């Protein structure tokens, strides 16, 4: 009787493991997994462009993540892996495109605008300061003295 109970419970457990869907492949190594996620977060999923490779559920992103994992397990450096994907998909796959003559404007544009803004503000301030300076004529001095003297008399 006890054997039967054991057998059934064993079968019961088995049925669960059989029902479970095939697990998504993940790295056994949490260090590699973290390295992969850090790297994939800086890469664009070309199939779903507002998502990073790390956050996308698109099959394209899942495949690339798996490939990154395997390359890391093979001992490739981050730079080697990045070069591998840039060779195939172009700079567009990187969220941080490298500085190149084609994109100097992309990198330099904001600073050019910032400097332009500084120049505009500086000029505007200079003009305003010039407008604030009031010439005091001899007549103004005389009137001021008169008013002050007048006050003294009344005391």
């Amino acid at each position: 009787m006890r054997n039967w109970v054991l057998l059934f419970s064993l079968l019961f457990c088995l049925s669960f493991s059989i029902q479970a869907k095939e697990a998504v492949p993940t790295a056994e190594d949490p260090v590699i997994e973290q390295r992969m996620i850090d790297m994939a977060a800086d890469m664009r999923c070309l199939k779903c462009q507002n998502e990073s490779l790390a956050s996308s559920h698109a099959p394209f992103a899942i495949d690339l993540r798996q490939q990154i994992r395997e390359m890391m397990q093979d001992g490739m450096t981050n730079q080697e892996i990045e070069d591998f994907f840039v060779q195939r998909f172009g700079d567009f796959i990187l969220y941080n495109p490298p500085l190149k003559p084609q994109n100097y404007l992309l990198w330099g544009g904001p600073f050019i605008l910032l400097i332009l803004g500084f120049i505009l503000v500086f000029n505007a301030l200079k003009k305003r300061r010039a407008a604030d300076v009031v010439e005091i004529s001899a007549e103004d001095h005389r009137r001021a003295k008169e008013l002050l003297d007048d006050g003294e008399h009344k005391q």
Partner: protein
Amino acid sequence: MKAKHLIPLAAFACLMALLIFGLINAKNVTIVPSALIGKPVPEFSLATVMDENKILSSSDLKGQAYLLNVWASWCSACRVEHPLFLEIAKSGTIPIYGLNTKDVPQDGDPPGQDKRFNAKRFLTLLGNPYVASGYDENGRVGIDFGVYGAPETFVIDKEGIIRYKHVGPITGDVWVKNFAPLIEEIQG
């Protein structure tokens, strides 16, 4: 009112004009230009869809100009361009090779089938314009080609250099505009 006060308004109007122009003339941003144009075809060697004992490899294809079309039975846009490929194959303009990508059994497929079942059925039912199709089960050869979806079609010249890539289904219009002149050039 001084003309000077109109400057911010004019600047704003210019910015708006620029943005509207950008919106109207926006290129399809989902199409990423291939980084492999002008580069040699990545090396590959795959068993074919129709006969797993046959191998389709990049070295076999050297010396001829050909199209390499990335397709799959699950790819609905591939069915759109399929009749055009049948026509091209019939006319003998240029040989078409296939890269069948990730065409694995799907949920709901009859059990116990060959893993190539869906791909084979696609070609049997709709016709086979391909000289041969490599069976790229996990999509790794696709990644080497910078493929990020199906369909994609590469034009490769006699020296084995990738000359052009089209993302998405090839319509008659695209064929006439982008493919026909280039094929004429590289065949000559």
